[in-house]
């Protein structure tokens, strides 16, 4: 027989109550779970992403630098680095993790054949700041080391055999800058270093940023923003301790930066550098019509490839403390007295001030003014000469007296009209303005009065007048074309020309004189010998340094226009050249032949050039 539950003494109602209470409890949980898992799913997913997803800004490959004919001046080469995945060596504490990494590095160093460049501090900094990212240990390893690494890979610490987890060490491919021509145009191109990827404006909040190449000097620096690749983005998932838990996934691929085409012509640049080899000096070749810089050389130079992959302190110090100052770009940053190359400016200023072209002065071999004597190159004097002959013979007394006659202001105005004493406006980080002195400037700088002797000095390009070779190339171009150009290096920039404020007839007189300079009896006769173009030019020998340690900076500036005798592609080409050699003998002896060689490289055909040279050699 059965006893009905109702007949039990107690508790039937409690069973129902308990069941009801349980049911209510489960409904409450179900409702709450609906709120958390269905309504709150998006927020929770967001919270999870925020704590576990890291945004990495990745490096875009830098654009190349090309010359005007598309020849590569700066390129990227694939480079292999050996990187370490810190997560593989994780231990319970950071200290133990750092120690495990140090031990692993020592083991791999034997295989790679290079000691680990990382210090304990580097490792700890990586653990603190870049934990989720691979740590680059050996940058730019060679093929032998790579082969040994690949061969011994399975024996290395933290190796993952099945590939489901990352190995302790891995090979990473990056790009390094390379300069295929070595030191050619080193000053012009500049060099690069590494920095964090720069965030595009308005989009920050990256957890990690790769190091990207950044221009440190030269064109690499000036056009850094143009050359730099478009940064990409990848995402990493990290665990609660901050270690990466999987391979990074690319969200936005990094873009290669655009190529930069320069106005530089590698052949002319090479010719300039060949002429300056072993010397201290600089040379600039401009397209006289457009201002395009065809060559810009400075010697001694440096090889930007030596600064890749990283500029080491020792190397930098060796270069930067060299007394020859190889890091100084003399073409735009060297300050030189122009010497006699300034005389055409004085001549033009004189003509503009009303002195007639055939006005004659007598030269007795020296110019005396206010107790000061300026000697002429020809001790016994040139005798009577007009402005053309004075230019041809580079007669000091003629220009001194002309300068004194027209006065400081007219001379300064003419110098400024030729762009001296001001930045040239070139698209280059260094653009030294030089000095065109006047009374105010002298008072401010030296707290001295302006003496008439200062005008005399300045009218022959001495004294306090300072210019750069680039400025003198502009002067040469302006003398040839009648317009001052703004030099530029980027190929597609529009030419900027400022007509000289001088009458064309007067300019023609000066040009006539300059043509006589390179003529048979001129001081710069060796500047145009055998050049298949119309050439005008001016020598300069500027004396610098204290008495007793006098040195001569020797100049030659030239303007040349291709004619029928030039090689076909150079016909009609107009170039302006300025070349300075420190510690030379004289402008006509030292600088002029070098400019001549450069002009031949530009205008003469390959056979033509060597032929002319022989002809010169055999000439009596």
């Amino acid at each position, binding site marked *: *027989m*059965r*006893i009905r*539950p109702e007949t*039990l*003494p*107690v*508790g*039937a109602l*409690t*069973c*129902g*109550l*308990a*069941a009801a209470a*349980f*049911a209510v*409890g*489960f409904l*409450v*949980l*179900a409702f*709450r*779970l*609906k709120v*958390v*898992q*269905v309504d*709150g*799913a998006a*927020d*929770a*997913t967001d*919270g*999870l992403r925020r*704590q*576990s997803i890291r945004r990495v800004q990745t490096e875009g490959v830098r654009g190349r630098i090309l010359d005007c004919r598309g020849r590569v001046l700066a390129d990227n080469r694939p480079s292999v680095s050996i990187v370490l995945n810190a997560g593989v060596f994780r231990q319970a504490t950071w200290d133990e993790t750092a120690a495990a990494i140090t031990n692993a590095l020592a083991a791999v160093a034997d295989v790679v054949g290079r000691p680990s460049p990382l210090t304990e501090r580097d490792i700890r900094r990586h653990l603190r700041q870049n934990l989720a990212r691979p740590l680059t240990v050996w940058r730019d390893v060679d093929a032998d080391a790579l082969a040994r690494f690949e061969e011994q890979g399975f024996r290395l610490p933290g190796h993952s055999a099945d590939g489901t987890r990352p190995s302790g060490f891995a090979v990473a491919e990056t790009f390094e800058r390379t300069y295929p021509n070595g030191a050619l145009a080193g000053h012009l191109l500049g060099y690069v270093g590494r920095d964090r990827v720069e965030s595009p404006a308005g989009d920050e909040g990256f957890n990690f940023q790769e190091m990207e190449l950044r221009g440190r000097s030269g064109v690499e620096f000036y056009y850094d923003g143009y050359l730099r690749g478009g940064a990409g983005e990848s995402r990493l*998932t*990290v*665990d*609660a*301790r901050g270690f990466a*838990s999987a391979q990074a996934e690319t969200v936005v691929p990094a873009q290669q930066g655009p190529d930069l085409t320069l106005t530089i012509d590698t052949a002319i640049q090479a010719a300039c550098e060949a002429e300056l080899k072993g010397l201290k000096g600089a040379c600039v070749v401009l397209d006289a019509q457009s201002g395009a810089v065809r060559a810009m050389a400075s010697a001694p130079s440096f090889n930007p490839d030596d600064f890749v992959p990283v500029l080491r302190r020792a190397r930098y110090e060796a270069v930067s403390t060299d007394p020859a100052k190889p890091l100084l770009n003399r073409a735009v940053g060297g300050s030189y007295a122009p010497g006699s190359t300034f005389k055409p400016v004085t001549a033009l200023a004189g003509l503009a001030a009303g002195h007639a072209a055939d006005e004659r002065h007598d030269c007795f071999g020296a110019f005396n003014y206010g107790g000061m004597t300026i000697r002429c190159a020809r001790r016994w004097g040139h005798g009577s000469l007009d402005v053309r002959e004075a230019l041809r013979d580079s007669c000091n007394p003629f220009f001194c007296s002309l300068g004194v006659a027209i006065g400081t202001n007219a001379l300064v105005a003419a110098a400024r009209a030729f762009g001296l004493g001001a930045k040239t406006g070139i698209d280059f980080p260094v653009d030294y303005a030089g000095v065109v002195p006047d009374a105010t400037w002298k008072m401010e700088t030296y707290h001295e009065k302006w003496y008439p002797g200062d005008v005399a000095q300045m009218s022959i390009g001495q004294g306090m007048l300072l210019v750069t070779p680039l400025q003198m190339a502009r002067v040469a171009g302006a003398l040839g074309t009648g317009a001052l150009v703004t030099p530029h290096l980027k190929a597609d920039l529009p030419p900027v020309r400022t007509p000289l404020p001088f009458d064309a007839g007067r300019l023609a007189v000066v040009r006539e004189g300059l043509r006589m300079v390179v003529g048979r009896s001129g001081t710069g006769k060796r500047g145009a010998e055998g050049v298949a173009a119309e050439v005008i030019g001016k020598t300069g020998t500027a004396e610098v340094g204290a008495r007793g340690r006098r040195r001569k900076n020797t100049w030659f500036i030239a303007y040349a226009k291709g004619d029928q005798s030039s090689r076909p592609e150079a016909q009609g080409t107009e170039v302006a050249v300025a070349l300075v050699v420190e510690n030379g003998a004289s402008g006509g002896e030292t600088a002029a032949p070098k400019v001549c060689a450069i002009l031949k490289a530009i205008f003469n055909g390959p056979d033509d050039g060597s032929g002319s040279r022989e002809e010169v050699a055999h000439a009596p």
Partner: protein
Amino acid sequence: MLRKLVHFNWVQFVAMVALIALGTVAIWSAGSAREGAAFHAMWAVNLRTATLGLALYFAIAFTDYRKYLTLVAPPAYLAALVLLVAVLAVGSEIYGGRRWLWFFQPSEIAKLCVIAFFAELFGSAEPLFKGRTGWRGFVVAALVVGLPCALILAEPDLGTALTLVPAVLVMMLAAGVWRKGLAVILLVVAILGAALLGAVYEAEKPGVEPETRAKIVRCLPLRPHQVKRVKTFLFPASDPMGAGYNLRQAMISIGSGGFAGKGLGKGETNHLKYLPPSVSMNDFIFCVWAEETGFVGSLALLALFAALCLSGTWIAYVAADGRGRLLALGVSTLVFAHVYVNIAMSVGLVPITGLPLPFISSGRTFLLTVMAGLGLTQSIALHREIQT
């Protein structure tokens, strides 16, 4: 035997087996996120323990509880008290608490012993003492549950002690123990609880001077970590990297599971160790399950637990005698209290308490205890007819 099988409660059995299966999966996933072969093998341990548990379950279920309860319950209760004292004396200390005696937790076994002893005292037809429905009964009941609770609290293990309270209260209600007094005491407890919450709220709400806060906290009968947990419950966003970290990660874990979940073994907060590995296999294992199976999986789990608990109340209802009814109610309420508190704390409904989720959390003593309790309940179902 055949007659017994007719009364076999399949709902309870199937729900239990299904929960063992789900639990093994959850333990596998939580264990795979940790380093060390021992953790990777925890699911197998769980399965072995469950096999042992099933043997225990059937042995208890097919034995008539009425034959031995009188004989076994009182000494079992005394033994539990002795073990609880022993664990305080020689137990191994883990995380600042003494809960382990060799390989098991006496407090888990004690729960079942208390329930059994209480059922024996208050459910038998021949009362052991007079006036059990009066205030004397209440005093006895309070002592029976109070002694072990005090010992468990001393471990300290507030959560485990507290789960006994609802079980005993339901049993007292069913046994008709001093209802008026029970009502008054429940009211007083509710008011005290509310007052405690209010006090912590007043102490921890923003803008309270540190001195004032310290003064209030000093007056409360709570340990510092308990104050922190209540504070986290009241202000979940107050300290997301400190006291509120576990709750925040639990909510992220459960919430990011969404409707359908991320797939078994693919829980991110678990595998990326945002959900602290020290709790992901035990107190917070619901998060692992909820993240990987989503709302659908959570509801399925709730449905299985509901089936388990409600089948218990049904067995209590059809029980042959008062002891059976009290036993079934006690075990069901104990299971319910664990399930409710564990899940509710994971979703921020109650303050965080270290309580396992039956069948899902990894833990051998508790699994065996719950399966023994369910076996007892099944025995009540099987032996619902009075033997002549």
